[in-house]
């Protein structure tokens, strides 16, 4: 009986102890499961964060790629240009609000080898019509570091005003110097071919050049006198002989001084009739000479230039005599330090084969620079005709010019 009881007690004891063991095992397993569950949750959370991050990164990659593409594609496109609006009052006429022009400039660049540059010019006429023309359109080939070949219609590289100063945000006065306007003493543009570039010397001085061959100008006669020389960049070479010319410039950065010498030579003839049935009389000589400088001593912006176009005599022409157009100007501008105000003075002269068009001119101006490329101008032109009995009217011009 005792043994029976003892074995029962043992059995119960064993059963109890194994039961307690199972209990702890379960507890352990449960906590392990809990831990695993937690881990699994964390893992899931981590996975979703990771997925989100991966999405973000790939999105950013796409964006970065777009940006890289934008920064470094083979072709770049850029729209620049300038426009101006204003008011002009001429002594002998009623003042008029004016829209000086809107000139968008297109740049299309292919790698670092080619560029198409084109300037359109929009103007409104007295009659309210809009007129569009091509200021220039060239394809430039950057052959190497010192030579670029430029073909098409280009602004005349002779002198500095027509090519570099005429945009209204650049010109410090609201008008072109007398003789440097359209079809006056300074050639405007030409159609042909040009080589240009520069060279930097050891001394840090630099040399720049532009050499061209082009269709050249044409003459217009009024009776037996030459009335006008046209240099808008003609699409046809009426005189049958190309014009060759160019400008050489030297720039001395330490003295802030640049000067340039220009020349061109060729043939020209008198054009008569109307488009498309123009006729041209016998060719005669055509020569251009010019000199220009710009200099910035002590914060004063000084520039000036001289230009002359001349044509030879031709006995068989309707206008047989030789003649010339000459013009020069000197300009000084000063921006008062610490302010946005600028004062400008310019003196110039225009001498033509027809006395009635000669002008002596002094122009004074006050400018407010909202930014370097956004300028408000008030300019007053004192005009005079030096020939006895002839006069030229003064003008006051107000202009707001924006280069973009």
């Amino acid at each position, binding site marked *: 009986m005792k043994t029976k009881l003892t074995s029962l007690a043992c059995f119960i004891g064993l059963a109890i102890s194994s039961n307690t063991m199972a209990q702890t095992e379960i507890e352990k397993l449960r906590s392990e499961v809990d831990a695993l569950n937690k881990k699994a949750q964390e893992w899931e959370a981590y996975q979703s964060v990771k997925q989100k991050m991966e999405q973000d990164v790939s999105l950013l990659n796409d964006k970065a790629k777009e940006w890289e593409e934008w920064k470094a594609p083979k072709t770049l496109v*850029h729209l620049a240009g300038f426009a101006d609006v204003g008011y002009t009052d001429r002594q002998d006429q009623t003042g008029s609000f004016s829209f000086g022009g809107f000139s968008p400039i297109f740049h299309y660049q292919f790698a670092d080898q080619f*560029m198409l540059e084109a300037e359109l010019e929009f103007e409104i006429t007295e009659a309210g019509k809009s007129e569009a023309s091509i200021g220039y359109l060239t394809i430039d080939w950057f052959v*190497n*570091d*010192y030579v670029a070949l430029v073909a098409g219609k280009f602004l005349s590289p002779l002198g500095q005003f027509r090519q570099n100063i005429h945009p209204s945000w*650049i010109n410090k006065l609201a008008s072109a110097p007398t003789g440097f306007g359209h079809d006056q003493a300074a050639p405007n543009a030409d159609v042909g071919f040009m080589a240009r570039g520069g060279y930097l010397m050891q001394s840090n001085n630099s040399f720049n050049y532009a050499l061209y061959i082009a269709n050249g100008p044409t003459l217009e006669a009024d009776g037996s006198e030459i009335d006008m020389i046209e240099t808008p960049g003609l699409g046809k070479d009426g005189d049958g002989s190309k014009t060759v010319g160019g400008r050489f410039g030297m720039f001395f950065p330490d003295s802030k001084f640049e000067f340039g*010498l220009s020349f061109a*030579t060729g043939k020209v003839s008198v054009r008569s009739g109307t488009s498309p049935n123009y006729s041209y009389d016998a060719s005669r000589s055509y020569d251009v000479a010019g000199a220009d400088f710009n200099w910035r001593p002590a914060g004063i912006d000084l520039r000036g230039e001289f230009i002359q176009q001349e044509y030879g005599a031709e006995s068989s022409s309707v206008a047989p005599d030789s003649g010339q157009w000459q013009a020069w100007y000197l300009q000084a501008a000063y921006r008062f330090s610490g302010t946005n105000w600028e004062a400008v003075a310019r003196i110039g002269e225009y001498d033509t084969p027809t006395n009635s068009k000669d002008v002596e001119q002094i122009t004074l101006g006050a400018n407010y620079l909202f930014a*370097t490329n956004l300028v408000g101008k008030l300019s007053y032109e004192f005009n005079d005709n030096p020939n006895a009995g002839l006069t030229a009217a003064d003008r006051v011009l107000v202009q707001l010019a924006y280069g973009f």
Partner: protein
Amino acid sequence: MKTNLFKVYKTGLASLTVIVGLSFLNTGFAEEKADTKGDFARGAKTWVENCVRCHNVRDPKELRDDQWITTSFHMRIRAGLTGQQTRDVIKFLQSSN
């Protein structure tokens, strides 16, 4: 007298044209590979000195990187800058906008 001076001037410049032309034929077309990258410091100097020759200096912040490339190539033609000066100016402008 006037015409003679004119002729001398013209002949002088025409000879200069020929000399420049010949010197480029001789050396100009040799490919330059040595130093094709833009340099910031040189570019800053070129910018200060050259970009005021014709107009008020334009703020580097005005344009984006890609627009400074087209503008600088445009100005290279206008101003007669060398290819290296252009790359230097682009580097300077792109780092300052």
